[in-house]
């Protein structure tokens, strides 16, 4: 073998052919993303770009800042943004308070029971948003089921105002958004090796200490992912606040719809949408920075390497 010269080696090395094979494989893998990429361009990039462009078109049809100036000057717009973020914030908080214990229980159940619990969480998820929202109206309204029961039971004398206000909207939205918190959190909790909790107990941690020092920190990435999902989706909610807010809760999406269907003012609607988009992105960036999402270890860590 030592007799083979360098020239002879390069002749049989296939260097060029191997490199072009590698390039071709790369393009083929990229090709698999093609359909999705195409779809995203058609339904996301183009419309958002168009919105962005529209928002700079004034009433006379030429470039203008007037849509943004109006947003900046009018107090009603500030109120709409404030209430939108309030609703999203409170919904996220309530989903977390209800969802975390629920998901924890589900993650500790035996397989069959956990599957049944998961189906009950997902079942409403599979029914129409509108139907669910009107179902809440049936339950919550002045002469609805809940007020009826409470009065029959003698707990209250006059009906509680459960709907057509902030409370009603939050009740409806929290229920609708719950699966978005439960699903990523459940995946994250199931990935936590039970041996970590056994190890914690063996090292002297009571069940409560083991939960707070080991289980909870390991479930945080899933909790953050779920909360972010709930928050971002809540920011753009439309149907539920329309039905359950009773005109008192005006969120950004509702105002966008009004600008277009009532005033045919695409410029104003676009400017609202663009500002909401930018604020949402800003929230995501801040959340990612604060929580260091990429650095939080997943529960299944430790098996790599």
């Amino acid at each position, binding site marked *: 073998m030592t007799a083979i010269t360098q020239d002879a080696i390069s002749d049989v090395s296939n260097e060029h052919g191997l490199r072009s094979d590698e390039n071709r494989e790369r393009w083929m893998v990229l090709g698999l993303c093609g359909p999705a990429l195409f779809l995203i361009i058609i339904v996301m990039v183009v419309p958002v770009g168009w919105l962005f462009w529209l928002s700079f078109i004034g009433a006379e049809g030429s470039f203008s800042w007037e849509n943004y100036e109006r947003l900046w000057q009018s107090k009603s717009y500030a109120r709409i943004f404030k209430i939108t973020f309030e609703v999203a914030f409170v919904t996220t908080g309530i989903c977390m308070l209800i969802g975390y214990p629920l998901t924890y229980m589900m993650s500790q159940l035996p397989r069959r029971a956990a599957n049944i619990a998961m189906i009950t969480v997902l079942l409403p998820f599979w029914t129409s948003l509108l139907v669910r929202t009107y179902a809440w109206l049936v339950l919550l309204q002045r002469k609805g089921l809940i007020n009826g029961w409470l009065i029959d039971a003698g707990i209250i004398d006059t009906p509680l105002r459960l709907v057509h206000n902030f409370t009603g909207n939050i009740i409806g939205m929290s229920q609708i958004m719950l699966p978005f918190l439960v699903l990523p959190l459940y995946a994250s909790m199931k990935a936590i*090796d039970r*041996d*970590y909790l*056994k*190890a*914690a*107990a*063996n*090292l*002297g*941690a*009571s*069940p409560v*200490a*083991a939960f707070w*020092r*080991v289980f909870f*920190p*390991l479930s945080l990435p899933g909790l953050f992912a779920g909360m972010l999902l709930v928050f971002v989706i809540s920011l753009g909610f439309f149907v539920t606040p329309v039905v359950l807010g009773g005109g008192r809760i005006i969120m950004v999406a509702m105002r966008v719809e009004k600008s277009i269907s009532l005033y045919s003012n695409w410029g104003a609607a676009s400017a609202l949408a663009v500002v909401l988009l930018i604020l949402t992105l800003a929230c995501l960036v801040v959340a990612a920075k604060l929580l260091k999402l990429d650095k*939080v*270890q*997943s*529960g*299944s*860590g*430790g*098996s*790599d*390497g």
Partner: protein
Amino acid sequence: MSTITTEKTALPITIRGVTKTYGDIYALDDVNLDVRSGEFITLLGPSGSGKTTLLMVLSGFNRPDRGSVMFGDREVIRLSPHKRDVGMVFQNYALFPHMDVNNNLAFPLKLRDVGKAEVAERVEKALELVQLSGLGERRISQLSGGQRQRVALARAIIFEPRILLMDEPLSALDKNLREHMQIELRRLHEMLGMTTVYVTHDQREALTMSDRVVVVNHGKLMQIDKPKQLYERPLSKFVADFIGESTFLPVSVEGGRASINGRPLSLAEAPPSDGANQLLLLRPEKLEILPGGESDSYNCFKGKVKDLVYQGESFLLYVDLDDGPEATLRSPTRREVLDAVPDRGHEITIGLHPEDTIIVSEDD
């Protein structure tokens, strides 16, 4: 740390009548065992034998149907795992991935309200003990398998438990590292002196490391003995078969005398019982080639050479015995031994020293 006396650092374990069933299956069947203070004892058995179940009963993660477990003179069978104060090394180490090495080691100390300065000092000492000084800031995911093993060990002993449990701690390591860690674990045990219960399915590991080995099968303790005794004087076919390589020859036993096809055998000790179902144990390395034919100082067997497998430092010789099955003989590849091996198909006489002639019962 090397001067600590075992009375202070170790507790004896007394296990009485521990039984655990899953449906009709006995995972543990009336287990009785005394582990002496400071002893290194190994539970050895095939998978599903109940050895891990027994370890989990000791750590408190498995609740048996009945029985008693005492650490010293304290009954612990109903004590929660977190109150048992035993160290444990898990098979997959179970190091907390959201903490660095320092915090993993500090975890049991913080739970015991040890002061900050002392925690730092003891973490440093523990890292030194397992030769990981300077790696305290590392995340678990940045450690190699061997390093994780050492961290797991350090975490299990840092709160100075008087009993240490280990569940196949070396099974994830490659062969060289495993053998190195076996020696190191022994060294640590001698230094710290805590009572250690070790679970493995690797017979060589069990023999290398233990003061005594407990062979477990079907939830029962088959034999409890020192490694040499266990290997040289197995009490049942199962133990003889599970530890080391073995061939068995059926023999007949009458009045305490064993014979094979009418030829009496000289035995190391009296056979366990009379009657049929008695087996002669042939271990490859106990058999010798007798170039001069039959000899009075050996129990001799004739046969034909079937095959020879050369393995470097030793060779394996397969012999079709006239008395029955095929026997395997292992011998170092010294020239005079190799030269004495006849060609394939030729007659050969092999001998077994009376001191190595062991009879075991078929039923185990």
